[in-house]
């Protein structure tokens, strides 16, 4: 599935250099990356290869010292921090490796949390299901299929697999344009892994979001449109994709 209605790519990194500390060596140097809308991209890299740094840059949490970062048509180096926070709230959904959930909120509150930070995503949810809660329940029901769960319940009794599904529902609510998944299945067993990936892909196809999937484990890369090796982004003389 290739394609994009719009001509501008969703993410474009150009000659990016970033170091966490002034004296440290750069985590990313001469980084280049271009991701089209609705593309499903697998970014493969061992730990320490700069994956987390890359995600922080794309999310607008940090800004590189050099280069150009464009996300959803916005030049991040020209935006103020609060404006970047807004782009992230409106357009990006995250799924982390583990511990995705706020422990003091219920399942439903965790899923609807992005709609508290973004009017756009709240409106999208309301447009689709009538209310934010309905949309959350719809997503949860799809992701949980048969299992019956009390969504007002606390999250601390959930298994890791269940937690990851709640996290996926939270990333998907309000149809953000970009879903970033950072090793979301690495703490799951093989069967759960398969089930989770199937559900994630189903939902992303429905919402038409772009998926940026980061993992060190190449076994899943056949599911994606494209594979980018981390080494090509973070090393000098990176390959232009």
């Amino acid at each position, binding site marked *: 599935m290739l394609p994009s209605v719009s001509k501008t790519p969703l993410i474009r990194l150009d000659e990016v250099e970033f170091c966490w500390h002034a004296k440290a060596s750069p985590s990313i140097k001469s980084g280049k990356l271009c991701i089209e809308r609705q593309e499903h991209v697998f970014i493969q890299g061992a730990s320490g290869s700069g994956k*987390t740094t890359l995600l922080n840059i794309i*999310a607008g*949490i940090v800004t590189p010292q050099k280069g150009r970062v464009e996300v959803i048509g916005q030049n991040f180096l020209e935006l103020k921090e609060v404006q970047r*926070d807004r782009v992230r*709230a409106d357009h990006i959904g995250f799924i982390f490796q583990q511990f995705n959930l706020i*422990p*003091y909120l219920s399942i439903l509150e965790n899923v609807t949390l*992005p709609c508290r930070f973004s009017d756009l995503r709240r409106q999208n949810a309301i447009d689709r299901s009538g209310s934010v809660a309905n949309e959350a329940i719809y997503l949860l029901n799809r992701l949980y299929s048969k299992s019956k769960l009390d969504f007002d319940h606390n999250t601390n009794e959930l298994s890791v697999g269940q937690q990851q599904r709640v996290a996926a529902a939270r990333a998907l609510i309000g149809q953000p344009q970009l879903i970033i998944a950072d090793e979301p299945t690495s703490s799951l067993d093989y069967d759960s892994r398969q089930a989770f990936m199937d559900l994630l892909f189903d939902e992303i196809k429905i919402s038409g979001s772009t998926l940026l999937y980061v993992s060190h484990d190449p076994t899943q890369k056949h599911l994606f449109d494209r594979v980018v090796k981390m080494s090509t982004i973070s090393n000098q003389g990176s390959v232009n994709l």
Partner: protein
Amino acid sequence: MNLRLLAWKSLSSRRSTAILTVVSIAVSVVLLLGVEKIRVNAQSSFANTISGTDLIVGARSGSIQLLLYSVFRIGNATNNISWNSYQAIAQKRGVKWTIPISLGDSHRGFRVMGTSKDYFSFYQYGQKRNLQLTYGKPFDDTFDTVIGSEVARSLQYSVGDEVIISHGLVSTSFSEHKDKPFIISGILEHTGTPVDRTVHVSLEGIEAMHVNWQGLVKKRKDGKTLTEANLKPDSITAFLIGLDSKIMSFKLQRYINEYSAEPLLAIFPGIALHELWSLMSVAEQALLIISIFVVIATLTGMLAVSLAGLNERRREVAILRSIGASHWHIMGLLITETLLLTLAGILLGIAILYSVIGLSQPIIETNYGLFIPISLPNEREFIMVSILLLTGFVVGLIPAYRAYRNSLADGMSTRL
């Protein structure tokens, strides 16, 4: 974004520490406002003890001592003043009224005061209020007595009861004059002053108590032999003066203080009250300082709890950041939490304070003669509470800033 909801949920999840923090803030609020309430009411009850009196005259001693025994019934006079001096001064031009005071006896722990009927006409307290009788009438007979409201309440006396007055000030005195009971003729209205705790008799009554009664008992019963003439006192303890015009008070004060026949002292009640209060204000300041330190200790405790929890919350902060929360949201969340704790502590503290006042009001009044009304917080209390809330906010800035620094360093990394 509704931060209050998030802050509330977060606090509820740490219920036990949150409740303990709220309770400790409440305790410090009770202390802070309680000290303030006692101070304000003690001061006003002080200032309201006596009013309308221009000069208090007694044997030469200290002005505070004179004030204490003549008005507060605390301590004793070093010396009496002679009846003749009293008469001479009372008849000076410009003196509108005088109230003689004769002390030294007690009834079951309450002071007995000998005075004249003028006491009921001229003695004023509070905002120039005269004494009123709730029951009965002022004393008429030598063996009549008028008791204060507190005496009547705590000893359960009513008009017509007989009371035995003992010599000296100990309640279980061996030298009780059992042969000479007094009859209660009236009970005064509640005043909130030492009057409530006083047993009033006529000067003749005081004299009669101290006459050797062995040969006179029978004569008293037929009622005639005891006349005012042969019970005329030789001396009194002190007296109060009301003048026609306040302008004269300085002149009369000088006259009394230079009185040649015996060493006397005349004081202005207002000035003496002020002097006495400034002595007490040291204790008041000390109490205030202690309560401020308690507040500081409490807020430090809250800060410690908040900072200790911060490391565990780094992941929570990273998640919120990834969802789109700005640094302002994160700081707002932490500040809102401390503000909620402080506010809850203040409200609980005020609730506890008013319940304690409500419950202990009669006990405090009986034991200390201090009436603390349940009133809305005054301006000073309001400012204190506002400063406390503001301090809560400032204290909240510290963990908020730490969370901000952590989040800068962590980014979206949740692998802690």
